[in-house]
């Protein structure tokens, strides 16, 4: 009771936030789980309990399997390229004295543009008849080509997805690098360690906890990819670039089947939790304090 009395202001201040999170996150979360056991269409008041039918349908659904495979490919690419490029850029920018602020702003800039705007920009760039890429090709005497095909669709949506959030992780890494004490680098310099070796053996271990957080964020972020894919390809052609988010949207809003869409939503939530837990375990290291 004494603790409660002492912390009453803190609890009072936390309550509104807790209320908001409960109403807008936890309630929809549990409601989604509940609705996934019903045949519920057209957002109507009429629902029929169907048990695990929606989950059975999900297992049999080719588009869900394709979306899962695409999501995993996207996850690997995001970790390798998004987090990887961000780390490399941060290491390079951290090592320069002039232009630090310029590069920080330039690389962060795509993060502030909405995903829909980026999607539209790339959709127009890829277009066959009016597209930027084909305009460049023909200007140099080349032939127009179809950029988004069944084979290339996933890569074509991955490019903007990766590009947009490189800056986000880049800024986080930059902040982490600024915290590394300079005397460690000076000692390393005396021992003759420079360049890539310095990054591998000193910098990366020292900011490893930040890297793990970024990897977790990237994994969870992959499940949220929607706008860019939706605008550029709509998940097609032939589900080639389908991700769980776009397929959920298609079922819920174009197909008006909210029960089945809820089951897909549950799959996204469960996978997100499992994968972020696994990534946390895999990247767990003893925290280095400095």
């Amino acid at each position, binding site marked *: 009771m004494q603790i409660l009395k002492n912390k009453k202001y803190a609890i009072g201040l936390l309550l509104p936030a807790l209320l908001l999170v409960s109403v807008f996150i936890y309630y929809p979360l549990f409601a989604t789980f509940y609705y996934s056991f019903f045949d519920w269409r*057209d957002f109507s008041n009429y629902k029929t309990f169907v048990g695990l039918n929606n989950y059975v349908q999900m297992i049999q659904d080719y588009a869900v399997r394709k979306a899962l495979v695409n999501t995993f490919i996207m996850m690997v690419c995001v970790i390798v390229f998004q987090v990887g490029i961000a780390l490399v850029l941060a290491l390079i920018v951290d090592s320069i004295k002039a232009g630090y602020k310029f590069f920080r702003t330039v690389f962060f800039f795509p993060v502030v543009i909405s995903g829909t705007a980026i999607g539209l920009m790339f959709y127009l760039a890829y*277009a066959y008849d009016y597209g930027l890429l084909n305009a460049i090709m023909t200007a140099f005497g080349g032939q127009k080509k179809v950029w988004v095909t069944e084979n290339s669709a996933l890569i074509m949506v991955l490019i903007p997805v990766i590009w947009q959030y490189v800056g986000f992780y880049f800024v986080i890494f930059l902040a982490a690098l600024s915290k590394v004490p300079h005397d460690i680098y000076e000692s390393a310099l005396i021992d003759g360690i420079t360049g890539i070796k310095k990054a591998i053996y000193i910098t990366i271990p020292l900011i490893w906890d930040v890297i793990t957080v970024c990897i977790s964020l990237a994994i969870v972020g992959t499940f949220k990819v929607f706008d860019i894919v939706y605008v550029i390809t709509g998940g*097609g*052609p032939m589900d080639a670039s389908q991700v769980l988010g776009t397929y959920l949207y298609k079922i819920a*809003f*174009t197909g*008006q089947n909210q029960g089945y869409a809820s089951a897909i939503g549950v799959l996204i939530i469960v996978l997100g939790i499992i994968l972020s837990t696994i990534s946390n375990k895999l990247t767990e290291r003893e925290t280095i304090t400095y």
Partner: protein
Amino acid sequence: MKNFKKILGLIVLVVFMVSIVGMYGNTGVDAKTTEKVKIRAVTYFTGADPWTNTWKEAIKDFMAKNPNVEIVDEATPAANDAIRTKIKTDFASGNEPDVTFFFVGADAEPLLKSGKVFIWDDELKKDTKWSSNIYKSALAFTTYNGPIKEYKGKVYAIPTIGFYEGLYVNVDLFNKYNLPLPTDWDKFIKAVNTFKSKGIIPIAGSILESYYLIETFILSAGGPQGHNTPFHPSWEKGLNIIKDLYKMGAFPKDALTLQDAQAQALFADKKAAMMINGSWCVGGLKDKVNTKIMPVPVVPGGKAHPTDIIGGFGSGWYVSKDLNKKKNGWPVKFVKYITSPEVEAKFIAVGGVPAIKCKVPNVTPVAQSGYDMMAKANSVSMPIDAQILPEAFTKIRTDLAYVVTGKKTAKHLLAEAKKIQDSVKK
């Protein structure tokens, strides 16, 4: 210091009270406006829609004539099915608007199931001065014939702007290459081959958004009877025709990912010779003189009459039964105003087919060709998506890419869609 605090407190109190008074002033809660009626109207006349300006002008005029009525414009885009989600959730959650401009057919059922939709029959009988202007054939599209007893045989929405789907032709391109207009299948195929050889896209069609291709070719293959019978064997033939045209190279090279808006631009810019689309495209055409709209030709062995078309009145004005009563009939009065011949003429001047008798000034040649096609039609069928579940139709539309590329047969796709349809009926 104490005095300072008191003065500060007093200032804060005064400012607070002034703000409260100001707020009341803004919301119109004063003696003069206590009887003011607010009507929430949801339409899809957003910025992207060609009728937006006409709609805005109409509500402004109505409010000027009726100063006690305020129309709250809650326009929601039709794109990405945003309007469907809004209307259906609003009706399901008891937040239905006073007036709604929404789709009819399969989309109307969830609204009617809620029992909140006003039935127009009495009003149509009572006010003949207004109702005699509405075409009976248009009202047939908004008369309910399904299993909900309360609405059986009743008019649940007032039609206003109709539509047709047909083959748009850039006549000047046909003249340039001495091609006859595609009035039958042989001429159509000849045009496809000629334009392809000349580097012009034969048909500006999108496989990704293939609504109109599916509907018109299924109608052409099966005639009205086949088209209007869910999963009739002729549907397979209709889809296979699209596949054959795709293999011939009749569509843009990026048809699998091309959006309909871009396909329309290709036709409007004369990069494509033909386009299968609806009456809503007329407003966006650059050349309204050298463009003609005609029925899609009958495919070999097809059951359609050469003038059978897809069309009708796919949207109408709904009113909330309870809110109309509560607001002294103002929602109904507003819909009557919107569906008066004067306002109708303004809407039709932008595009579409009138459901209400009106004089439309300055009809362009292309719009006239559309009206002629509608007037001469042997039959007018509502699109397939008004007849089957949205999920089943979405399956056919989005998986058409598998069919045209030969990765799935039309038979297999239709069987998958039918399975979805049947799973709900159980």
